[in-house]
């Protein structure tokens, strides 16, 4: 055999032996029995303390609530999703009590507005939707109402509605200025309400010749504001005082 081959064979032989030894000593005994992982890991995981009790356990004591819950739209949301792991509570029902999320931050985890959520999934903007009120004052989480199209503009545009409510325009209906298609309540992004497009629109009440009550401020449209539409300078949801 050539000298080079014999010397290289020694080097590769040592490396191969190192690999075989490493495989022998370092691979866990149960590796590969079931799949490409350590089979003993299954027992190790199974031996860990169980924290969740499961739906059945809740039903055995809280029969009425579970029955109500199972009939309604949250039926696929398990009890422990909101109330937390219940195994300890099942073992000692009186000593260990489970929390119920009553603060506002919890429900928006699923129901906060996010464009990537499916169309029709009930969503609100937590900033403008009845701020400061805990969700459960209006909604029963065990029996949530079927979602319906909003009746009032304020359901979605709460911030504007609240601003307008304390302004001089409080008594004007939203649809007085915004022409709104029915479709807007179903697909708000695709069917948008209009905005007043001409100066004459505001002039109906605020023009010099308008027949509105005389306390309402007047401007001469011919000289005031040049070519701008009124709402480019004045905020109609909270118009400045005289």
């Amino acid at each position, binding site marked *: 055999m*050539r000298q*080079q081959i014999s010397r*290289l064979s*020694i*080097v590769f032989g040592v490396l191969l032996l190192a*690999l075989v030894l490493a495989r022998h000593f370092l691979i866990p005994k149960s590796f590969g029995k079931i799949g490409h992982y350590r089979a003993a890991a299954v027992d190790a995981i199974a031996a860990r303390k169980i924290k969740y009790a499961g739906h059945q356990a809740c039903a055995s004591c809280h029969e009425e609530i579970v029955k109500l819950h199972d009939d309604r739209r949250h039926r696929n949301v398990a009890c422990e999703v909101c109330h937390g792991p219940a195994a300890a509570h099942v073992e000692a029902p009186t000593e260990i009590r489970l929390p119920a999320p009553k603060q506002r931050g919890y429900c928006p985890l699923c129901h906060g507005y996010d464009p*990537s959520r499916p169309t029709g999934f009930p969503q609100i903007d937590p900033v403008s939707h009845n701020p400061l009120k805990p969700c459960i004052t209006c909604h029963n989480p065990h029996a949530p109402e079927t979602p319906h199209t909003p009746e009032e503009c304020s359901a979605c545009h709460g911030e504007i509605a609240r601003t307008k409510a304390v302004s001089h325009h409080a008594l004007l209906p939203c649809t007085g200025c915004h022409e709104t298609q029915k479709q807007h309540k179903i697909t708000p992004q695709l069917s948008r309400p209009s905005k007043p497009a001409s100066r004459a629109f505001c002039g109906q009440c605020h023009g010099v010749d308008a027949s509105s009550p005389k306390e309402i401020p007047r401007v001469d449209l011919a000289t005031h504001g040049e070519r701008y539409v009124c709402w480019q300078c004045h905020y109609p949801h909270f118009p400045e005082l005289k």
Partner: protein
Amino acid sequence: MDPQLQPLMDVLQQVKGYIYPNEIELQWGLLVVVYPYVTGLVAGAFILASLERVFNVREVQPTYRLSLLTALAFLIVAPLPLLAHLGHPGRAFEIFLTPNLNSAMAMFGFIYAWYLMVVLLLEIWFDYRKDLIQWAAGETGLRRFLHRALTLGATDLSERSLSFDRGAGKLITLIGIPSAFLLHGYVGFIFGSVKANPWWSSVLIPIVFLFSAIVSGIALILLLFLFSSLVRGKDVDMACADKLASFLLYALIVDFSLEMLDFIHRLYEAEESIKILSQMISSRLFLSLVVLQVLVGTVLPMLSLFLVSPAFRSRGLLAAPAELRRLVYFSAAVLIQIGIFSTRWNVVIGGQLFSKSLRGLTVYKMELLGIEGFFMSALLLLLPFLILYLLVVLLPPWPDREARVADG
């Protein structure tokens, strides 16, 4: 606000359109850009070395050993960006112990080991064996010990033995060429097989990666060849430099054609992703793709090499003096390195900038410090040159040095 949230808030302000929450922050950063860049240099340098060995291109002979050592230096560094990116380097060896044949990523360890142990180290060993013995005979101290140890005790210098070395070297190069294709084609394969990502998922990606690897490897050797001649105070072997520049131009033309083919194919196919991809190219990737990769990194060097290098005739289109040719080659090679690095950047970073909703774009915010940061990547790009320096000191690749000792 929580100061830890500040970086997220900065990025959020630049997010455009709709994007899923888990897509805002990029998971593969600068280190994953460095990795295909470095493996590309390895494959390219080796393929250049094989030109002399297998295809008998005499002119590039002076760069043969330099190419091998460069490939080795970069190959040693190639897995480090991945180790730094993944963390837990102590677990890295486990892919060798329990090989998973279903995972391309898991098999990379074997491709790497094969290429390092069976191709590069063996080829270098067979090529240097004679010199190692002769160097050791005329030296003392540590150098003598190291050179003698590297012979592994195979000190037979008979003609039969030396011709066996040459034959073995040639055989290994023959195995080495498909191996080098495998090494870098594999990197492209990983990206090309991500079927959920329209920017990556293309059968052309492995081939484009391969040719850009050859381009970057030849350009790197050209740079090192010119630089080493300068440092050693030797006249540049212009026949070699001209040949390298010619090969660089050929490879660049093939690489550019493939990239354009991929580009035109995407445009013509116009899949549902085309809108967001064209948005991305014209906004987020404009500088790195259109300016750096295509104009500065490909078209400009291609034109300058086309004008100056004797690629298609015995002289270039412009009869430039040697000094000017060297300058053009050097500048073109630097620009090509910038261009190929941008290519890797555009693939890795670009593939994560658009949302799977195909309706939004995010941004990549590079860190400066930290293990995924700029300085870490810069260190990993400088490290191969340090290793190469040590290798060159230990195993001088210069043909004149080989001859002098052989004569002495």
